[in-house]
């Protein structure tokens, strides 16, 4: 590597002149940051992420948290995973941004500016769990292709916006409506403008839920660029790919939405369970809806060494898609025995629930603390990997941390 120095201004105006191009998202680039063409991109600075976040992919950007980074009750931006399918939109103008409602089943196609949305409809805030459908993919065997997420593709931030159902009702929903599909401003990796990187959606029943938002802020601030500025659809409890970022259109469809990554094997699992490695025809794959029961121990960080006779207070979060949790248990003996942790109620539906416990150990040695959540229907997290599927979705196996008692 060779190094050279470069004189840069903290304001980016003349830098743009120097490059002969307009610098987009100028207002979102941190002061002192030198953009794109002039250096290797530092995603931690660009997206304001903690440096302990793990970059899985830089084209498109994909970044995940580690368990101990997710200890906050409400996930701050710096610890929030990024899952992009395409390239970030190259131009975002908040003042002229429009959300279009169209599709076969809209009574009257309508268009709303951001200020229309903010002034015409009531605002709501919810803490909503968003987990990537492929979170945990790295453990599947035989391996599944795609970003090899470990456990950090989950977050629960506070989203503020208007209810999708209020906006859809304003445009009018025909009786034959089945699904909504979103369209967004990100760009396909091939830079082919006729291709969309991703255009997914949800059935009307999910679209019309009170917590399904057209969000314009996250944790009380404008949504960060990587998370969908200026407008994002948020469908808590479902694969996060249903929560479309950089949203410009919602189509009310009279059939299951057929946008990019709705078909084939994308965000689908075999309708009937299969043996590991089995080839499954596209028509035998079913769309993932609510995410399964899962939990994370977020404190302490794995690897804690404690003195004999001391106890360790653990805490973390548990979530179960559309459902609530009924129980959180932990084990220090690989599931031979389980003890119950204190589990808090969710602040609102579709938010993760916090748990804590004080854990003691019988004698010196190497231990693992395993956490196992149970949802309101009695479904428990498996200790080994759940059913294999070709794309490696829905790994909700128990999380565990290592502890040494000395």
């Amino acid at each position, binding site marked *: *590597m060779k*190094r050279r120095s470069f004189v*840069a201004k903290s304001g980016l105006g003349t830098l743009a002149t120097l490059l002969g191009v307009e610098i987009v998202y100028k207002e979102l680039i941190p002061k002192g940051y030198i953009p794109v063409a002039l250096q290797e991109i530092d995603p931690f600075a660009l997206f304001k992420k903690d440096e302990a976040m793990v970059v*899985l992919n830089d084209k*498109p950007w994909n970044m995940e948290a580690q368990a101990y980074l997710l200890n906050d009750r409400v996930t701050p931006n710096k610890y929030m995973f990024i899952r992009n399918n395409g390239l970030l939109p190259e131009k975002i103008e908040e003042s002229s941004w429009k959300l279009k409602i169209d599709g076969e089943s809209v009574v009257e196609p309508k268009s709303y500016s951001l200020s229309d949305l903010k002034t015409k409809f009531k605002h709501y805030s919810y803490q909503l769990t968003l987990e990537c459908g492929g979170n945990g993919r790295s453990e599947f065997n035989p391996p599944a*292709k795609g970003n090899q997420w470990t456990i950090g593709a989950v977050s629960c931030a506070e989203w503020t916006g208007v209810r999708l159902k209020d906006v859809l009702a304003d445009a009018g929903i025909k009786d034959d409506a089945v699904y909504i599909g979103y369209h967004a401003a990100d760009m396909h990796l091939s830079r082919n403008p006729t*291709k969309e990187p991703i255009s997914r959606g949800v059935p009307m029943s999910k679209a019309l839920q009170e917590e399904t938002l057209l969000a314009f802020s996250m944790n009380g601030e404008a949504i960060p660029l990587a998370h969908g500025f200026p407008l994002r659809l948020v469908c808590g409890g479902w694969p996060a790919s249903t929560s479309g970022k950089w949203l410009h259109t919602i189509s009310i469809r009279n059939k299951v939405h057929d946008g990019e990554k709705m078909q084939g094997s994308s965000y689908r699992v075999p309708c009937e369970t299969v043996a590991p490695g089995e080839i499954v025809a596209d028509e035998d794959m079913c769309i993932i809806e609510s995410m399964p029961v899962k939990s994370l121990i977020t404190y302490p960080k794995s690897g*804690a*060494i404690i003195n004999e006779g001391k*106890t360790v207070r653990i805490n973390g979060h548990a979530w179960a898609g559309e459902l609530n949790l009924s129980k959180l248990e932990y084990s220090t003996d690989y599931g031979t025995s389980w003890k119950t942790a204190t589990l808090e109620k969710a602040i609102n539906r579709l938010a993760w629930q916090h748990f804590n416990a004080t854990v003691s150990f019988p004698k010196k040695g190497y231990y693992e603390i395993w956490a196992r959540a149970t949802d309101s229907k009695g479904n428990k997290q498996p200790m080994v990997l759940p059913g294999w599927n070709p794309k490696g979705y829905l790994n909700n196996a128990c999380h565990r941390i290592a502890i040494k008692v000395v």
Partner: protein
Amino acid sequence: MQEKENNDGIVFKPIFKVVLLIFTSFIIFGALAIIFYGPRQTQVDITEIDPELLENGVHVRTGLIEADGLQTVITNCTTCHSSKLIIQNRMGEEQWNATIRWMQKTQGLWPLGENQKVIVDYLTKNYPVLEKGRRPPLTDIDWYPLEGK
């Protein structure tokens, strides 16, 4: 001789004027720029990677292993997506071929011809499938002391 010099002088004079004008404006605007923007200037180190550099058997810019087929992989695969997507995926020949077909069908990948075998050979040889169980032991544990209660 004298006359020729004069002639030369007549030919070059306007050009010198233009050059002088450009040079003067450069200095004046430069000085103005420093006056207006100077105090906010910061010195920033920029790392620039030689696009061809190989270090310890690894192609530095992409992180890909140096082996037969490297350039073909760089040219055909990393134009659209990051090399990080290649490195973190471990698949057999059949799966890689299926992935290439999928990219051609849906993602705009061009026909690879004879290069397809070069690419798949490179991938399966340098990034072979690792055997994993249903739950492997925890590894890479970063031990640290914790004050218990």
